[in-house]
């Protein structure tokens, strides 16, 4: 009884007024298409788009392996795709395959992500992207695939309408 009363009083006191809160997550962030051709570098561990005046997948893959410009580096961009690697678009058995000059298993997951997203954004309706080397072929991947990455744990609030 006494504990219940104390609990009620505590609840009342802590529930009074407008108090600071932790971070509450709502609905999904707004999302939309980008009209300019982009390659994807990294800021920290997340992808960051960079616009290139270029047409065609191979050309963009070239920009990707070339790395961020000096100004972009100053802004904090970096790349995990090694600069010596060449990437080429091929069509094998009716499927789009990106062939790397090195064993793709030596590439870091973030580097693979950079390649997959650059291709996905360069081609309308690209679908899953396959990366292959001389002798190995990796399974198809989606760009920024939420299904292959664990969602970050956050307290969930009510989902805000979009």
């Amino acid at each position, binding site marked *: 009884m006494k504990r219940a009363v104390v609990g*009620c009083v505590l*609840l*009342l006191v802590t*529930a*009074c*007024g*407008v*108090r*600071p*809160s*932790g*971070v*509450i*997550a*709502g*609905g*999904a*962030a*707004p*999302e*939309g*298409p*980008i*009209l*300019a051709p*982009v390659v*994807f570098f990294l*800021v920290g561990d*997340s*992808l*960051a*788009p*960079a*616009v290139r005046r270029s047409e065609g997948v191979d050309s963009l893959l070239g920009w990707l392996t070339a790395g961020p410009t000096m100004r972009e580096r*100053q*802004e*904090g*961009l970096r790349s995990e795709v090694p600069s010596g690697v060449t990437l080429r678009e091929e069509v094998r058995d009716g499927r789009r395959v990106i062939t790397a000059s090195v064993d793709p298993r030596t590439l870091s997951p973030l580097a693979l992500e950079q390649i997959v*997203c650059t291709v*996905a*954004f360069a081609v*309308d*309706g*690209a*679908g899953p992207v396959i990366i292959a080397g001389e002798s190995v072929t990796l399974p198809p991947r*989606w*760009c*920024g*695939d*939420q299904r292959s990455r664990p*969602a*970050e744990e*956050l307290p969930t*609030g*009510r989902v*805000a*309408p*979009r």
Partner: protein
Amino acid sequence: MGLRTRLLLAFAALAVVTTTITAGVLYWRARSAVLQATQDAAATALTDRVKTLLPLSSVPPRRADLEELVEGLSDRGSGAVVLFRGQQASSGMHPQSLPAELRSAVRSGRVVWQRVMWGDTPTLLVGTELRIGTGMGDSVPSGLEVYLARDLLAERDSIEELTWWAGAVGAGSLGLAAALAWVAARGVLRPVRELRHAARRLGEGDLSARVTVRGADELAEVGRTFNATAQVLEHQVNELRRMEADARRFVADVSHELRTPLAAMTAVTDVLDEEAGDLPGDAGRAARLVSSETANLTRLVNDLIEVTRFDSGSAALALDDVDVAAIIRACLRSRGWLDQVEADLPEGITARLDPRRLDVIVANLVGNALRHGEPPVTVRLTADEAWVMVDVEDSGPGMDDAVLPHVFDRFFKADTARSRSQGSGLGLAIAWENARLHRKGDRVGTLTAANRPGGGAVFTLALPRYGEGTGEKR
């Protein structure tokens, strides 16, 4: 703790608990709803505004687009910040004031918000990061973070109003509960009080005491039982009184009926006494025996008649202003006791009392002392403002402690071995009743018996000095 207090406390506790829970839950829900609505509105405003940038034409966005976005957002709140890698545009707030945890949560791809206190102002911060996608499920962050700040002053005011109302409703219901408890307690306590008064009256001898029974609850049942009990009690006590009165009347009737034949017998024995001397032997002794027993019987019957007068309440005082010493001396002289008794009778003590009854009392006390005690017998008269006291002492062995409480009982014989004595066994009882007849206000005449420290019994008569002419009524 009284019933009233307990009821009040119980009702108050009930009211406090119920009100606290009800008002608390309602308050909590209302507060959540107010904040939720504000947060949802802010989040919608933010996402709607950010979506005007879409489709994105370049990364980084043009400076003018960012400025326009910030302006549009700050119209809807108290401040806005747009961040893109190194660049920033802000209005109404500084980008440094954004909490680090909110900034890291923004990168989760959700709209996030947080309430913070900026000084005394509660503020809601909503943030999100614009994402770019191919429309095929591919989605990556664009690096453009947008934050909107909105003060919660209006919400705080309405929540404080809610608090005030919750408090007011709580206090009001507490008062209402107290009033209800008071009414309920009165409803319970009134029959209880009536029952208590009736029980007290019954205990004081008013057998007609009853309670008014209302309703059909447990208390009414108690009242009904009480009434039934009191009725039975009254009936039985009345029956006992009637039987006692019958018995007394019977004794009185018998005594009266015996008087007439006894008068005739006394006349005959008077003649026999005169002739007894001439009668020879046994006939003379028989005649004297009949004569003395007839005298004893006559005394017994007279005493019985006297007692029945006391019992029936018809004994009345005949008050007179008298010289007490003179009355006592006359009493002793008429019975021939003057030379057997040491009388200490100061002159000049006058009192208002019944001289005949004083005579009866003194005669009984002195006669008793002469019969059962040893000489010398002393009669001492004293008086003060309020009382006249007569002590009659003898020099015998005194009375047994077991006997003392019963010496004024009727037909009580201290010496059981002596079954017959000259007394009727009613003398001291009659003296006691006579003493009690004298009263003045709440002072009542008393007759007490005790043993003197040096041996011998002492009977003390105390009469109010100026009695009132009221006969005893029963």
